[in-house]
């Protein structure tokens, strides 16, 4: 996982929690969406956190200080709807933790009690713990192998909180499977839940429909209608299937 600080004064100025950008590297590069993990308006920079999974993300992770990103456009999508609701559980896994940070900060600033659940395979993969602690009331760490925090899945962490105290909202960002299970869990406890979806995209401006998902039985475009939706209405199975579009068997 790599953290990049990118000079983009206009985006830094206009972005809000929940927004994303589209990045393209090189003449023959692909346009890929990346959620903005933070911004410094003074310095005119935005922070992106990328995990090397495919060809394009590997290339972006390979960038060095001083390198230029060929094309960068944003901020895209709808900003997170932040208000004072009471207690908010923010559950993040994998690269989802980075875009979760501005949301955690925003809900905290709005006067909510914020509990963060961070999940990863093992201790080295837990990121942004310090920053999360600084902007929340509690951080629960879950690792698959038990090398740090509590051994277990993100859902175990979330459930322990839901059992313990009255929760008003859950926000989840991470791999689609993770969000699917968090959503199923909070549905059981009837906790309103927002998921930030990371579908395949091309333009990111509502022009192509590559990013479409079914929410509440209706087709929506993640890049313009989202990326955040009511998780309980999202057809995660369809989304998971569509994410596999370009996996060659």
């Amino acid at each position, binding site marked *: 996982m790599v953290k990049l600080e990118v000079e983009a004064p206009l985006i830094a100025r*206009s972005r809000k929690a929940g927004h994303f950008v589209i990045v393209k590297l090189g003449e023959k590069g*692909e346009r890929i969406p990346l959620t903005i993990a933070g911004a410094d308006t003074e310095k005119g920079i935005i922070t992106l956190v990328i995990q090397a999974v495919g060809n394009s993300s590997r290339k972006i992770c390979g960038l060095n200080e001083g390198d230029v990103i060929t094309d960068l456009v*944003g*901020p895209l999508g709808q900003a997170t709807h932040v208000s004072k609701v009471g207690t908010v559980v923010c559950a993040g896994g994998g690269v989802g933790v980075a875009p979760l940070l501005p949301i955690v900060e925003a809900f905290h600033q709005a006067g909510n009690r914020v509990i963060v659940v961070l999940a990863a395979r093992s201790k080295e993969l837990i990121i942004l713990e310090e920053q999360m602690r600084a902007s929340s009331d509690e951080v629960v760490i879950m690792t698959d192998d038990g090398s740090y925090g509590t051994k277990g899945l993100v859902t175990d962490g979330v459930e322990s909180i839901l059992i313990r105290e009255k929760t008003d909202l859950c926000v989840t960002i991470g791999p689609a499977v993770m969000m699917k299970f968090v959503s199923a869990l909070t549905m059981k406890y009837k906790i309103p839940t927002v998921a930030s979806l990371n579908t395949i995209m091309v333009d990111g*401006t*509502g022009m192509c*429909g590559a990013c479409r998902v079914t929410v509440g039985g209706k087709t929506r475009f993640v890049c313009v209608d989202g990326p955040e939706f009511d998780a309980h209405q999202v057809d995660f199975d369809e989304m998971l*299937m*569509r994410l596999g*579009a370009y996996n060659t068997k």
Partner: protein
Amino acid sequence: MATDHKNTLSRDELWRVELRKAKKNKERTDIPRVRMNELDAAYRSRNNEEVNLGLTGAQARLEASRCLDCPSPSCITGCPVGVQIPAFIKYIETGRFLDAAKTLKETSALPAVCGRVCPQEKQCEAQCIHLKMKKEPVAIGYLERFAADYERESGQMSVPTVASPNGTRIAVIGSGPAGLSFAGDMAKRGYEVTVFEALHEIGGVLKYGIPEFRLPNRIVDVEIDILSRMGVTFVNNCIIGKTLTYEDLRADGFKGIFAAGGAGLPNFMNIPGENLIGVMSSNEYLTRVNLMDAANPESDTPVLTGRRVAVIGGGNTAMDSVRTARRLGAERAIIVYRRSQEEMPARLEEVKHAREEGVEFLTLHNPIEYLGDDKGRVRQMRLQKMALGEPDASGRRRPVVIEGEIETIDVDAVIVSVGVSPNPLIPGTFSGLEVTPRGAVAVDETTLRTALPDVYAGGDIVRGGATVILAMGDGRRAAAAMDAAIKTNV
């Protein structure tokens, strides 16, 4: 200057009077219409080379001599921007090709583009006097293309003279034909013009939509280059409403804004299985292939190619998609259209070329469901057979369902090309802008001014999916109206 030009365009000019006398009308109408030189269908359907090769000088002059130089030329009334058709054609006939190109540019900002993509058979050529004599119309589109190409290839392409800078900043949203023609006209009048484009490429649909085999990118790039040389600034990767807001533009000192964001939102049919892998909008398919060069192995962007590709729809976008599918190796590339061939909105030439390239046409069929495999990939489609009923509001005969007649065919990719809607982004972020019930930006019909006094709009964002020439005409009209408004301070 202006009067000068009027003179040279008049049919009473001596050279034109003599030219008319040089041949009898009967001789002229007896000449058969020229055939476009084109690449062989079997060859071209496997590559991206431009299909139409253009006319030679001799062919163009002969074709130009078919034109009778009518006293009240009806062809001009068929042209949405009123190109001085007989004048430019007569210049071609005398061999003054550069003058022909100049004449075209008086009214059309992008003649090399329009000569390639305009539906002439529904516009100028549909009004040609030859049709009344049961002859084929003069090939106005081919001649337009010839003159524009001749000028470009001659290396004598002129950069239009620009009035001395008046220091007034103007912003253009979108770099499609509407935005480009507006930018050119305002630059000529001395304004300081900046064009903002959301994508990484300048050109709008001309780049991301219309394929290389019909409109090579280099043709569009030449036009963009000329605008740059006229002082127009292009800013790519900048979404107005997101990166910069309406308020930002005003604060930055822009005195007028032309919204030409196009109709980017693809329509789907909302039928079962439409979200299966392999079912995509034509915008997605064409953007991947044209803008992202996905068919090139060196490109990082993938595209799904199928052995059996069905394209739903009968417009230009559908034809471009289906012909692209053939070029990407589809064994069967099928147009599925719910009406008959007669009602197809696509240009005749596109339909003809598609047929020659081996595209199959399944007319009077309408998809009702897509079926997938266990991985969620589309494998089959169910088609409802249709018949033609009474004419509808569009004047075309309405397709009606033939009860119980349903067919299933095997497909591995489906491209949905059933129209586009105006992109809601601009109306959504410009508070005070009015929209029609269809989501188009509402404008004054003559001035193209919106409800916001400093914002004008034109092209597909106002019309829904329309044409290049209409978008271009809007750009020119809006430029004239905005200029007048700024000068008189209203």
